[in-house]
């Protein structure tokens, strides 16, 4: 479905990732059923059908699903279902629009108590394109909708009766077909109380300790999640939609911790992508300037700037090698700021450099090298929410660290779906303040991957 209704957002820290990291991440994704189409794995029923018309409308596609979000415990938690669907109308090759709806609801007959939770998200999306010149296609891409959550008969006095809000996301698109370039200039406004669990659930729960080496130092200090844990799948990952906005790690992503549908964000964005060229492939440049649509803890609003760029450079084409020598480059810079009094000020910079080389130095045998370098410095406040998604307090965070992950290895490709990899990964985190512990973890991994 759409990024505002039901969408399994990619975790933080992937910006044109090197193959040596992607190999391990793919295993984690496969293991967690995180599909490439950003869908969630659910158990239930679904139906699809399409209608084609001779006149007026070209086609109508209808998709629907119903799943069990949570079984009842028979005492306090009613059976919770999650269902929805899309109705897409394709007027012609240039115009299509659709209606999307996802709904969480409780079956209140499944327990004696009468509490009920409901969350409904309804959106419209539109895609209109027009051939302006021979090789230039322009258009409008947009989605707008609303959410409503209800807490019925909850005894907890903090439970609101209902929370309603809306969003819109409108972008002009241009496709320079002869240059394989796509440009997108958009503006979006996602309300502070727009709640779409299907699109806002995070893959990783950053409030939990990693699965391995939970304590470090002789004082048995708790070890927070590092990016090495994310790569290795050594984190607590989500298997189901979360009705609550999950904790996030502001050092990695502050602007869109809950994906495109992150609530309380408004601003402009521009995305450029060049899908193919002779020596550079998958090049992209993205920029966004967002603010909060409603202040948190103060009337002053946070401002977010994100710059992203990446490309795959095929060095073999530069130097005339027959076998592939590819350089993956990616960079993401994020700045979060807020002016005001000393206790209101926020200034956080986070930079991720993602780089790697894969070189087929012998037939089907690749040398893989990669590095992920995070540099994070500054302060911010993170919302601490209750189970009804209301902000109850703020966590003051002051970062000044570099977190680097290096990996190298060899990969033998028996075929496209059958590979054997041996790799060494080293990670270290160095804090420049005195209160946090510097440490590192080394791993040596044999990875045999057979996909079928």
């Amino acid at each position, binding site marked *: 479905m759409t990024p505002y209704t039901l969408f399994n957002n990619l975790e933080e820290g992937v910006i044109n990732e090197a193959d040596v990291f992607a190999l391990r991440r793919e295993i984690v994704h496969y293991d967690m059923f995180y599909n490439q189409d950003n869908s969630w794995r659910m158990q239930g029923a679904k139906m699809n059908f399409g209608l084609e018309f001779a006149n007026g409308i070209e086609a109508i596609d209808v998709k629907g699903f119903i799943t069990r979000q949570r079984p009842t415990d028979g005492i306090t938690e009613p059976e919770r279902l999650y269902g929805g669907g899309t109705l897409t109308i394709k*007027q*012609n090759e240039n*115009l299509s*629009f659709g209606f999307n709806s996802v709904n969480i609801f409780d079956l209140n007959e499944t327990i004696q108590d009468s509490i009920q939770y409901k969350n409904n998200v309804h959106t*419209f999306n*539109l895609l*209109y394109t027009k051939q302006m010149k021979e090789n230039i296609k322009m258009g*409008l891409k*947009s989605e*707008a909708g609303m959410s409503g959550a209800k807490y019925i008969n909850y005894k907890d006095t903090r439970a609101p009766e209902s929370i309603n809000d*809306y969003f*819109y996301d*409108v972008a002009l698109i241009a496709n320079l077909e002869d240059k394989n370039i796509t440009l997108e200039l958009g*503006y979006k*406004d996602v*309300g*502070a109380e727009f709640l779409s669990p299907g699109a806002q659930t995070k893959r990783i729960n950053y409030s939990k300790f990693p699965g391995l080496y939970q304590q470090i130092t002789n004082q048995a200090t708790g070890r927070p999640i590092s990016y090495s844990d994310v790569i290795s799948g050594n984190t607590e990952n989500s298997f189901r939609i979360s009705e609550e906005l999950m904790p996030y790690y502001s050092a990695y992503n502050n602007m869109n911790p809950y994906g495109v549908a992150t609530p*309380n964000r*408004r601003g402009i964005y521009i995305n450029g992508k060049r899908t193919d060229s002779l020596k550079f492939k998958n090049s992209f440049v993205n920029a966004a300037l967002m603010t909060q*649509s*409603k*202040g*948190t*803890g*103060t*009337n002053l609003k946070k401002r977010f700037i994100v710059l992203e760029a990446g490309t795959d450079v095929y060095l073999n084409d530069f130097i005339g090698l027959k076998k592939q020598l590819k350089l993956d480059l990616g960079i993401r810079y994020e700045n979060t700021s807020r002016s005001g*009094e*000393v*206790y*209101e000020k926020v200034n956080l910079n986070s930079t991720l450099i993602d780089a790697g080389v894969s070189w087929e130095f012998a037939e089907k045998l690749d040398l893989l090298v990669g590095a992920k370098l995070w540099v994070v410095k500054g302060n911010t*406040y993170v*919302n601490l929410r209750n189970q009804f998604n*209301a*902000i*109850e*307090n*703020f966590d*003051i965070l002051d970062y000044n660290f570099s977190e680097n992950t290096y990996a190298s290895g060899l990969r033998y490709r028996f075929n496209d779906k059958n590979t054997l990899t041996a790799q060494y990964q080293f990670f270290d985190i160095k804090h420049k303040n005195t209160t946090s512990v510097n440490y590192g973890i080394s791993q040596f991994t044999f990875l045999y991957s057979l996909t079928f």
Partner: protein
Amino acid sequence: MKKTTLILISVLLIFSCRKEDSENFDGPDLNDLFGPFSIVQDIEINKNIADFTVDNTLHFTGELSKNTQWNISITGAITGATRSITGSERVISVDNSAWDGGANSFPGFGLETAYIEISFPKEDGSPILYDTITITGNKVDAGYLITSFENGEGTNWSKFNQTTVAGAITCGDGNAAKGNCYYSFTGSVPWDWAIGSVMIQPTTPTFGLPASASNLYFNMGFKPIENIGDGNTFIQFWFDEDENGDGTFDLATEDRFIYEYWYQDTGWNLISYKYSDIQFDTDGNQVSTNGNGLPEPAKLISINVFYLANKDNGNAKAYIDHLIFTTNKPYTP
């Protein structure tokens, strides 16, 4: 098709008209959580001489730089009575700092000087402010005062004291729960738990209490001093009701409800319970009486306060004070 596109774009434009919300924000105020603390407007009392019989209340005014917890502590110089007023609002005013002259518990304030201390416990390094007031008139209690022992023994009262026990009203030593006087029992009774009692009876046919027992509370101050400890001392109340209205109580045909209050703590204990509850024992069962079994305060003609203590523990000593009925809620000193 152009029409369709125009309609859809129009819908999107309508959506884009979100009202700018710069007046509200989500979550608690950062200023309250992390902002610097200061006293923007001095905290003052609206009067330094308080006659609560006339003025009813006094209050404080002032303004802080943030919403933070503040405690106002008022302590009687003679009685040691205390009253705490707490809040967390930035603006201190009559709405959140009014004081009616009452105390948190017994003892109550007398005609005395009271010391005031204002503190901000969550603000490190914040000042503690001090002031004093003079109380020239005590608060008037809402309720039906049976006696506070201020006017001596009533003409219809009867007392029982073991031969080794002194039971009498004592005044002027600063030990009263309320006012200047209280009733004291003291003595050693090695042969019996019964120490002494005072049966309080009105000069009028009844105490003039309302008919309904369901919203009427009986209250009394009790201060065990010697022969204390769990299971060692208690007060027994006898409530005698003249059901036939002949001006006398007949135990054989009328209700005597007995209620016991066992030792809980040293210091002045405020005994409060709903009058309608005296028809039940501690297990919730209906007690046996010889009348209709219904608590009827309008027919109450006698309250006997009976002090008992463990005969094996030597001298027993306790004070009682301020018997008062209140409506709808327990008494607040």
